[in-house]
């Protein structure tokens, strides 16, 4: 746990959850967000912070299989649940391949959150329409790509 120090005023408790398939236990303040825990405590930095208030979608993770903002999820809400982050997605997944091949990645900071959101979409709707992709990603901001290649990549992964 890399010795992250908690503030002098902190209250902590043991929180158990399943992270990318593994039983995990962390001692953190229950008021910590999942994002703070992932990045600061566990130093799993694939999940990015863009705004810390649910406006950008960068920190999208799956909790019990549905995409949510890690920045708007308290650790108390994670207790006993199952969390999937970008690190838990198979690196050979067709979605990753499509993102690389279609040039959907530029600065790449929004990419993990978008990959997680799109991964979930494809699990629900294997062959989504362009409109469905745009809706599913409407909360994932990207400042580099204009979304064109991101949408193309998700559609391509959906055709596979």
């Amino acid at each position, binding site marked *: 746990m890399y010795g992250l120090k*908690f*503030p002098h*005023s*902190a*209250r902590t408790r043991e929180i158990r959850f399943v992270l990318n398939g593994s039983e995990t236990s962390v001692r953190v*303040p*229950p*008021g*910590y*967000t999942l994002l703070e825990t992932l990045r600061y405590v566990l130093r799993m930095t694939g999940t990015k912070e863009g705004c*810390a*208030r*649910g*406006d950008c*979608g960068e920190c*999208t993770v799956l909790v019990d299989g*549905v*995409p*949510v*903002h890690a*920045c*708007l*999820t*308290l650790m*108390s*809400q994670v*207790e*006993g649940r199952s969390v999937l982050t970008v690190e838990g997605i198979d690196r050979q997944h067709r979605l990753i391949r499509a993102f690389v091949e279609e040039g959907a990645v530029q600065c790449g900071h929004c990419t993990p959150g978008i990959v997680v*959101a799109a991964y979930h979409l494809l699990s629900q709707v294997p062959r989504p329409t362009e409109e469905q992709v745009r*809706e*599913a990603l*409407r*909360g*994932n901001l990207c400042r580099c790509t204009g979304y064109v290649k991101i949408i193309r990549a998700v559609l391509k992964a959906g055709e596979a």
Partner: protein
Amino acid sequence: MQHLADVEVYSVRTLREALELLSSVKGLRVIAGGTDLIVQLKTGVVPKTNLLDVSRVDELRYVRFEDGILRIGALTTFMEIYRSELVRRHAPLLAEAAFTVGSFQIMNKGTIGGNIVNASPAADSLPPLYALNAELKIVGPRGERFVRIQDFYKGYKKLDLMADELVAEVRIRPPGEGYVGHFFKHGLRRGDAIAVVNGAVLLRLSPEGIVRDARVALGAVAPTVVRSPSSERVLVGSRLSPEVMWRAAEAVVNDISPIDDVRGSAAYRRELSVNYVFMTLYRIARETGVVA
């Protein structure tokens, strides 16, 4: 920015435990999805306080149709509401609104009970609930009681809810045959955006195109969501012609009191309210074949 590292969070699994803690521990604030509250705590809009996390009270997460009433548990998320066949059948207005509550990530986490108690005048779920004459089931140490959604709000963020009570269920009696309506929302972006104005229009039309019942609700234009009796009066008994639609739309200004904020001026909100009611009436008229 506030941090929440020193906040105590009580996690409960049952409604009973929740009510017990609310009665025994003072100053607890209830957190459900937390999509509004966490931001408000971190930005200091809401003073930092200990929390009662009810997000795992699964008995409050359901959509049921019993005794002719659609019942939605307070912890049902907007995604669940949007996807519910029962909601689509009995309260399609609410399904439409649920789809516009922020991003999918917000829809997956935000709950209808949280939206109601957060009491933002711009809350997307509220205009449909006003138009549908929804009722809230409130539970507390003194038992349960029912309150009409209109009566639940006493003013800006003022609720008919005691500190030891919880909103447990939303009840909607389906309006019945012949009703058509739509939710509308004006955001400053097509993606995830907070409403500058939102609302719902629900009409019952006779086969000849005469309005038999009209319910017009508007959000983000007053301290609470409001119904527009002035507009409804113009509509009831009239044939849905463009002229009537405009007159009914313009009547809404009698019932709203918008303010200026960062998303728009009061004057613009007034115009949008009128124009959206017109556009929604027109859409209904076209869908029902009243206008071409």
